């Protein structure tokens, strides 16, 4: 929690600065800081020999979805949303998603990741 409190605070501030000043560097630095927070969490998990809990996964995916939704809403309805802002959002959110997928693939392997998703679908179908 401490790590996330720190990384997310600075990450969001940098992202906001990026959007406010059309600064690609500031905005992407913000997303990079959030990815750094994710990596720090993985390292701590490895040190303590634990994985992500269901609540943590739900919170993470929820926050990501809210972020993407806000970005799309700003893109559609916000005034003065320039090219740099679009680039920040697209590259930034893609980067965060890529970091998550990379983690899954490294941790479970390509086949394992695919089977994990496939299993979930199979369970849903059975239900």
């Amino acid at each position, binding site marked *: 929690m401490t790590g996330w409190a720190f990384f997310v605070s600075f990450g969001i501030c940098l992202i906001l*600065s990026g959007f406010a000043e059309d600064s690609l560097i500031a905005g992407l630095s913000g997303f990079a800081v959030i990815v750094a927070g994710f990596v720090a969490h993985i390292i701590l998990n490895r040190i303590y020999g634990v994985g992500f809990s269901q609540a943590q996964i739900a919170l993470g995916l929820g926050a990501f979805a809210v972020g993407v939704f806000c970005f799309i809403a700003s893109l559609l309805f916000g005034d003065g949303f320039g090219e740099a802002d679009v680039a920040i959002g697209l590259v930034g959110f893609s980067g965060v998603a890529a970091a998550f997928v990379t983690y899954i693939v490294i941790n479970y392997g390509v086949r394992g990741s695919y089977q994990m998703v496939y299993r979930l679908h199979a369970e849903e179908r059975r239900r």
Partner: protein
Amino acid sequence: MTNDRLAWLFIFVALYATYCVFWGVDCARGRRGAMDFFLAERGVPSWVYVAAATTLTFTGWVAIGLPATILRDGFPGAALALGAIVTPLAGAAALSRQWMLSRRFGYVTPVQMYADYFGGPVIRPVLLLIALLFALPFLGMQMAATGYLFQVLSGGFIPWAYAMWALGALVFLYVCLGGLRAAAFVGVLQALLFAAGLVAIGVIAWVELGGFPSFVALLDKLGAAKVDDWGASSAGYSAMFTTPGVVQFVGGYGKEAPVGGVWTTTMVLSTVLSLIGLQLAPAFGVLAFSARDARGFAPQQVWAAAATIGFGMVFFAVIAGVGAQFLGASSAITQASLAVGSDLPSLGADHDVGLIAVYLNSLAARAPWFLGLLAVAAIAVTQATAALYVSATGTIFAQDFYRHHLRPDVTDRDLKFFGRIGVGFTMLLSLLGATYAPDAQVQIGALALPAGLQLLPAAIAICWFPWLTPRAVVSGLMAGLVVVVFTGQLGLTLANFFEIDIPWGRWPWTVHAAGWGMVCNIAVCLLFSLMTQKRSGLEHRMRFHDFLAEAAPRAPNARVWRPIAWVAALAWFFFAVGPGLLFGVDLFGAPNAGAKAWLFGIPSLWAWEIIAWVFGVLLLWLLAYRLGMSQPPIRPIEMEPEAIRRPI
């Protein structure tokens, strides 16, 4: 714009407060006993200790005070950044061994340790007095600075006293709930914010100045122009770039001020030594005793304090402090047309502590969210200090006053209750002092660091030298404290009050009160030790030293490395913060010769300080790791059976 700024300020403060209260509540769960409240059951993990101890090592002084000092006094004042080496050096000398003693003999507070080792009726009250000096006026000064910061950042919307009381109440709440455990765990976030805030202030200055090359170009002009309040040295160098001699035999402030600047090498050395007081303060000892093991000591001293925070201090604090001169904070430089911006308002000598506030204010229009976040970072530093000091003082109050003097048979529950009362009283008195007697508080609070330093012979005696006798150490401590009072502002005020004419002012001969106190302390200590050697006393002391000799790690090839370490330490002190600092003034290019003549592309004195910092980190590594001074004991320590039964 003001609304934006206030909104972000409140959002971040609310998030921070929620985090603190969460930890307070979480640590209070499960009906934990007094030992958990006081020492977290001696189970603070190493990484938590590293973070919390680093924040406590530097306090708000670094975050708020150092850039302001550099703004006022330039590169000579920047030598204080080498306190990042000297302060943990004291920890390397004493903390690991004190931790071993606390494990073996069951000490909860350093006061118990000193009282048990030295015996006699004097040491305990003197240590309580020093603990209170840190807890009340020193803490009150820092809390007041936080309140002032909040007032400036809210555009005057929140008066400083209200802000200070509200932030004090937050500290009280989470410490009262969770004790030292909560203070230490919250300290992790506070440490991260502290490090990031220190870097961020430098980055703001860097950006405002137009990048590093632009900053160097401005320094080039300033070096040639000699525009500042202190004038020029005999060599014709601007006082901002040169150290005003080894020592100046002047009466001191109030009688005769030094010429060409405050920071003679003697003043630098004695001031930097005074920072050792932070590590020797009883509160720091309580935090060290709470560590689960000794694995955190070396990384805290070498990598967290000296390397990381030291880097922030020698680079970013210097850029923020000196850079502020070119951004409108110095009226002399603005008038000489050397300023490149007017982002900062002109700060007078009395308002230099507002430097961080005005830096953050400069963000209000462009990035109010960063204003909110960095304000919390600045607040967090002082809150970390406050939390650990009030927690430790509550512990000392319950253990060394209530339990020792009033009720030795107190129950666990009552002891915890009185610990909480101690926390409450400490917080209340420090805030009352800051609100209603700020001048007195500043004068008394200024004694805290020099008074803490006076514990150095006592700490060294316990850890290394049984030859120093209890009477000698206690006499030296008392003599040192008296001299500290009468070479500082408080002594002069007292003398004035009683209409006594003292022939010197504050800090005579450009030696800080801490330095005068230390000289007297050591002289008395050595002299009395020669005269008061007794066999029976030595046997008592050897009980501790025999245990340390058995438990402390032995470095391979110690016979080779020990003399090397001594020589390296003495050389470092001489060249980095001692008379050798003078070589740094123009060794890498004369200050007025321009950037092209500067060997490293920066002023010579700054380059010298950076090199001294690098060698300082190496020296600390040598002592803490290679010589094993901060390494864990060679085998697990079992508590002495007697220590479990007896209340100390």
